[in-house]
């Protein structure tokens, strides 16, 4: 096996493919029915008969933590990574964890910035994704994207991350154009006990985390946690370090009270702060949030949820020259009830107030006015109709109102047909939806320079006429669960965008304004699967194809290549294997196509890389060594900075 591998490695051109292939074959042979560990998976009847009834009751029935039924039957392109997938992968923060989702394009721009999107439009200001952590929206209405360096969670306590590619505007909101990322942490009753970990490495310099959770009363649990990390810089093309090392510290708590069988209350909050090095000096950031949620269930088909949160972040964008402080107050209400025997209504409404304060002392660039209140009202209703036992149709719409583009309507119609047996079913689904990306402050109020110039001098003067970007999406998908321990999904889409972002000079002048001068179509397919091959070996993987045609509308002239730093093909394979009861080996291989050159960024070559984690557990202690991006010494994911190969060692204690 190893000799073959060496032979194969000589062929550099197709190395990546062969490495993936070899790994798969190697593991298939090692762990398949004839392999060493097949015995453990299928306990024989005579072994089981030796166990008492009590002992039988302690056995795990299925080996995969299955996603809730509602997801496997949902009429949308959902991919889920479990907390276990994340912990085993050796990911050290949320963007690294999102690399495990094959329908997301994750590009690390520098040591402290990531550009993440699904279904295209992955620019520095990627702005078509809705991202939530425990129900709290974390994309910033400053530019419509996510400041990933501010988004931290204790990965040990993450329950799962659900990623819906495609529009989720009807249920979720105004930014859910190309996808929704929902990061969900565990209820504090599941995170009781002590967890301490510390790691040291080359690219991730160090990270320490501690959590303690306890029952504090009848049906009440509380956990508190803290974590700190230091991260080393990326490298410039000439091999020297770039100025982007950074550190962040976060602490938080979560309290859950299951008052009665029907009522549940959650209060949680986080505080964080940190510093990034930039070429212009140190840039600080900090923030805090607090969220309270009450949910009550009346029956299996009826419940309500009321949630309030406050969130603040401060970020020094250009040290000493520009900063931004944004405070969000949000209240959401949701109610579900059966209308008839075959219809369930889900309805909700919400209000969000965002107070933004951008301060710029730079004469070059400013967001004007500096202070602005952004109101957002929304209401939605959706009807899930069981036409037959196997055919479900869901129709609904969201209506929202924002300060820039006024009322927006985002309807959708989805249908799901369940085929086959109930426990190993397959679902064929189709959907048509409309979603909008409403204007952000960067679209409307961005000025270079700060003070207006005459039309004869080049300047950018905001986007007074900029309106929402609109999408109509057509989706068709198939999801199958061929065995109790495997799922496969194929989702395809065809998207039509109108009024897409452009920056163009007003006729006869050098005064540029942000406009809606482009239009686009895009199409693609997302294939993903998970499979528990044996009791001790699990595989996840996926392949995504994406293609877009973005062009200037008649009478417009903006070069649309800028909007599409998108990979055409990308693939992922994660292998999680318990080699013995104590030893776990995790391998994640991924490939992403090249990115085209744009007016703002360089061409990025396609790359293959892989991560490997080896973890040894004895009782409460786990020792692990993780290598990230091992294939090459350096690789680039966006523009020109090199992401170096990284290795870290970690010690974990769980009690």
């Amino acid at each position, binding site marked *: 096996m190893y000799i073959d591998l060496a032979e194969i490695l000589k062929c550099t*051109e*197709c190395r*990546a*493919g*062969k490495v*993936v*292939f070899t790994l*798969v*074959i190697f593991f*298939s042979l090692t762990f*398949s*029915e004839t392999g060493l560990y*097949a015995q453990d*998976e*299928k*306990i*024989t*009847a005579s072994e*089981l*008969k030796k*166990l008492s*009834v*009590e002992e*039988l*009751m302690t*056995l*795990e*029935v*299925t*080996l995969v*933590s299955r996603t809730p039924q509602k997801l496997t039957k949902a009429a949308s392109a959902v991919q889920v990574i479990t907390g276990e997938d994340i912990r085993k992968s050796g990911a050290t923060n949320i963007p690294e964890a999102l690399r495990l989702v094959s329908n997301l394009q994750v590009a690390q721009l520098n040591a402290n910035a990531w550009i993440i999107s699904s279904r295209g439009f992955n620019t520095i200001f990627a702005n078509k994704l809705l991202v939530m952590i425990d129900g709290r929206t974390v994309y910033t209405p400053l530019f419509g994207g996510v400041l990933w360096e501010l988004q931290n969670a204790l990965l040990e306590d993450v329950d799962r991350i659900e990623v819906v590619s495609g529009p989720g505007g009807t249920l979720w909101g105004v930014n859910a154009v190309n996808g929704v990322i929902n990061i969900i942490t565990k209820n504090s009753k599941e995170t009781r006990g002590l967890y301490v970990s510390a790691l040291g490495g080359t690219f991730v310099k160090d990270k320490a985390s501690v959590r303690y959770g306890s029952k504090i009363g009848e049906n009440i649990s509380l956990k508190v946690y803290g974590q700190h990390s230091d991260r080393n810089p990326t490298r410039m093309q000439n091999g020297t370090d770039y100025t982007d090392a950074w550190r962040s510290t976060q602490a938080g708590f979560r309290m859950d009270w299951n008052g009665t069988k029907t009522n549940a209350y959650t209060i949680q909050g986080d505080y964080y702060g940190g510093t990034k090095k930039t070429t212009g000096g140190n840039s600080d950031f900090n923030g805090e949030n607090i969220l309270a949620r009450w949910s009550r269930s009346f029956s299996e088909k009826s419940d309500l949820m009321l949630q309030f949160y406050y969130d603040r972040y401060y970020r020094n964008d250009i040290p000493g020259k520009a900063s931004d402080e944004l405070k969000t107050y949000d209240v959401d209400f949701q109610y579900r009830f059966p209308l008839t025997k075959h219809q369930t209504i889900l309805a909700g409404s919400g209000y969000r107030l965002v107070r933004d304060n951008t301060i710029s002392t730079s004469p070059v660039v400013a967001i004007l006015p500096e202070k602005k209140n952004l109101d957002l009202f929304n209401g939605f209703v959706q009807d899930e109709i069981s036409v037959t036992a196997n055919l479900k149709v869901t129709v609904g719409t969201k209506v929202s109102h924002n300060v820039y583009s006024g009322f927006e309507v985002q309807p959708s119609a989805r249908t799901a047909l369940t085929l086959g*047996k*109930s*426990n190993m079913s397959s679902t064929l689904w189709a959907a048509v939806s409309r979603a909008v990306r409403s204007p952000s402050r960067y679209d409307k109020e961005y000025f270079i320079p700060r003070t207006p110039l005459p039309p004869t001098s080049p300047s950018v003067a905001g986007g007074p006429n900029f309106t929402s970007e609109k999408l109509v999406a057509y989706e068709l998908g198939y999801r199958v669960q*061929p*065995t*109790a*321990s*495997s799922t*496969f999904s194929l989702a395809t889409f065809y998207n039509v965008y109108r009024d897409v972002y452009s920056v163009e000079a007003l006729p006869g002048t050098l005064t540029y304004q942000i406009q809606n001068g482009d239009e686009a179509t895009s199409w693609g397919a997302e*294939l993903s*699967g998970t*499979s528990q*091959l*044996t009791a001790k070996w699990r*595989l996840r*993987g996926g*392949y995504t194809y994406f293609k877009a045609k973005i062009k200037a509308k008649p009478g417009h002239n903006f070069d649309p290549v800028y909007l599409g730093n998108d990979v*055409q*093909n990308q*693939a992922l*394979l994660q292998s999680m294997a318990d080699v013995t009861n104590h030893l776990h080996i995790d391998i994640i291989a991924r*490939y992403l*196509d*090249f990115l085209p*050159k744009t007016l703002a960024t360089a*061409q990025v*070559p*396609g790359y*293959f890389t892989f991560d490997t984690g080896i973890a040894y557990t004895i009782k409460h202690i786990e020792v692990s060594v993780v290598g990230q991006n091992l294939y090459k010494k350096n690789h680039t994911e966006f523009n020109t900075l090199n992401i170096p190969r990284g290795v870290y060692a970690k010690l974990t204690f769980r009690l």
Partner: protein
Amino acid sequence: MKIEIINKSFSYTAKTFCVFLISLFLIFAFQLQAQTSREYSIKAVFLYNFTQFIDWPATAFSNAESPFIIGILGDDPFHASLDEAVAGEKVKDHPITVQRYQDVKDITTCHILFINRKEEGKMKEILSALSGKNVLTVSDMADFAAIGGIVRFASEKNKIRLQINLPASKNAELNISSKLLQVADIVR
């Protein structure tokens, strides 16, 4: 130069994906081959255990050596695992055999009847046909014990729990050992 890079990455891509797809199919093939239903292997042994912890009246058997019949109504989720679990086993002097039924009307003599959860729509008919007979009805369908079945395999946190409807067991003249009742949830 630039075009060269792009072309190169395309052929690289194409090859990577061909092998990736082949790999996925291989995985799929292995998966199907390795198709195990651990869940039902465990449930099969539960069914065997029931024969040891539950007493059937002597009238349930035509003679002292007639077989003890475990029936499966509807599609068989156990495959070979139930046959393996009871192979060569006896209840007192009754050798255990497994029978499979598509319709409740096909059942003549049966001591334990496992009802596939897909039969949920026919439960009324099934339970009324078995009423008063010495049959231990078992299923994993929702609310099985609550609607008049005797033992339900419930799953909780990926583990099996037993729910037992005691009045229904009395109706079938079955005597369930306290050892079994202690670890089960009694449902009315």
